[in-house]
């Protein structure tokens, strides 16, 4: 079981790296769908989550549905509608991004190593993956020009946070609220962002954030 979990985590890490290197938006959305499903499944393989209750299972299914289908589907539609395929000239290039991704993994490993003492259980890889995903999401938001990519970055960040949450927290009474919170957040936030994206597209004929730099001092 543990090995399977590690495999899943490896896939997630890979998806992170892929997303950093990808310049095609459709592919990016697909990667995100995959990542979402993987992330949702992780709790199944964790030691402290062995005894899954009915409620948790249900929640997990909803999660897979939203993270794997609903949101990617929406993003996919958005990509189609704005009829752009590529991210143009990211602020930080793809190779550099990839390199940064690797660095992030290293950094995450370092941080995890430092945190070892204070952590429950022994999920080193999970922690590394989580921090990497989180920071890569932030990185994506900071380094890309298209608004849609930034939403994807946000999603990735949320995935990371969810992973950290599952990694760190015990399956206690609080957990449902946590997962519910994440879901609610994702759903509504991304929907709102989707609406805005749509508006940005119709207002500027593009979703390039270069158009969104008018308000300044």
């Amino acid at each position, binding site marked *: 079981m543990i090995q399977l979990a590690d495999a899943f985590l490896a896939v997630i890490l890979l998806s992170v790296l892929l997303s950093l290197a990808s310049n095609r938006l459709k592919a990016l959305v697909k990667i995100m769908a995959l990542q979402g499903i993987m992330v949702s499944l992780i709790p199944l393989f964790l030691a402290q989550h062995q005894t899954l209750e009915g409620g948790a299972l249900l929640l997990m299914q909803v999660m897979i549905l939203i993270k794997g289908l609903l949101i990617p589907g929406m993003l996919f539609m958005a990509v189609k509608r704005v009829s752009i395929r590529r991210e143009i000239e990211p602020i930080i290039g793809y190779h550099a991004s990839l390199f940064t991704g690797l660095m992030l993994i290293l950094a995450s490993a370092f941080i995890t190593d430092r945190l070892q003492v*204070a952590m*429950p259980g022994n999920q080193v890889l999970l922690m590394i993956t989580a921090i990497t995903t*989180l920071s890569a999401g*932030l990185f994506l*938001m900071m380094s890309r020009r298209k*608004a849609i990519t*930034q939403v994807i970055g*946000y999603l990735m*960040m*949320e995935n990371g*946070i969810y992973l*950290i*949450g599952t990694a*760190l*927290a*015990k399956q*206690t009474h*609080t957990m449902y*609220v*946590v997962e519910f*919170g*994440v879901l*609610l*957040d994702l759903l*509504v*936030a991304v929907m*709102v*962002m989707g609406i*805005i994206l749509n*508006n*940005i597209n119709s*207002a*500027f004929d593009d979703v390039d954030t270069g*158009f*969104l*730099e*008018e*308000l300044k*001092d």
Partner: protein
Amino acid sequence: MLELVFIVPILTGIIAAFIPVQLGRGVLLVSAVLHLQITLMGWLGKISPAATGYFNSAPEGMLVLLVTSFIFLFISIYAVSYMKETQMNNESVFIGCMLFFLASMSMVALADHLIVLWIAIEATTLVSAPLIFLNRSKAALEATWKYVLICSVGIALALLGTFFITLSMDLAGVDVPLTFSSLSAVAAQLNPIWLKAGFIFIIIGYGTKMGLAPMHTWLPDAHSQAPSPASALLSGALLNCAFLGVYKVHTLMYGAGMGDYSSQVLIAFGLISMVVAGVFILNQSDYKRMLAYSSIENMGIIAFGIGIGGLATYGAMLHLVHHSLIKSSLFLSAGNILMGYGTKQVKRVGNMAQLFPKSFGSLFAGFAGISGFPPFGIFISELLIIIGAFQSGQYLSVTIFIFSLVLIFAGAARIVMRMSFADTDQEVLVEEKMLRVLPSYALLLTSLALCVWLPDQLYQTILNAISVIGGAVHG
């Protein structure tokens, strides 16, 4: 059932979406009155939260709730007239979102559970986004985008911080409900490292929402682009709600014996916010942005005051109340000016003293108030904070604090004087309607009245709120 304070606006908000706009305006007003009534009943102790695991009536929350409810009433009066005159085309969205906004903020004020608080704050972002986007202009779009994205990132980090706090519980083997009220009782047992980490992420997260520099970047855009009643609400109420989140975690830190650390962080953020606000208020060309930066400044002052501790905490809490009253009044005045002159540019507005006397009065009085002149309350709160800072021996901080106050005053005075007295070739487009002028005066008068006579209950509540972090008043 104090939960009614957010249930009622949700219901009326839904209703407003389905009925004709004329009725919707009535619904807005009725809900505002109803909300204030429920709040007051809560204050009088007639009703208290039912879902005690999730909500409670903590003093600081009740304070924020009262302020929110109070200014909402006046803002809604203003909004009714505003809607009529601006011929807003999506009025039902506006009314609905205003009510939802009120609901989410009330929920923040009552929230006791960490996650509920987080959800409520996230909800404020989402329901206020349409308010900012109401004008549907490109600039509004940009502001909304920045608002939603930056705040979402911030709040996601706050969620992470919340996780860390639960982790600190788990590691310490403490098994209590995840509520502030129960946590603060056992704060000393929590794992300090993870509590600290939690605090960092939460202050960054909620601090983003509160407008602390350097996470404030969305604020001037959003506050200047939103229609004025919404800006008033954003500045006067929402920032307080975010502050509530920061404050509650600070109390935990204090309880855990790490108050020094969190105080230092709050002081640092406070001062950075003030300096940044000062930088941008100097030579600001857009008066709504000026007000927005002034909100950043005042949030900085509050954070600073809380961080200083002692007498300054009382000052900070008073500052919160008075800032809400005065700043929302100022935003309402700004709305009138925008309608009258049709521009947000400072250099095109002028001679208000003659052309726009009523708004001039409220603008200038508000400016005097926000700059700390008596008879408005900020005079007292700033004095207390300065005195408190000296008492705690933070000489360097208080120097920066005073320096930025003067800097901001210099910048704001220039703008306000230019608008009030300088010549203009601009014609006044809209007359000053009583209904739009009175609310800003009423809010100012309230600040003034609270400076003459502070109800004992309010005083006691503030004392209860600050006693948790060792704040007290002597003499």
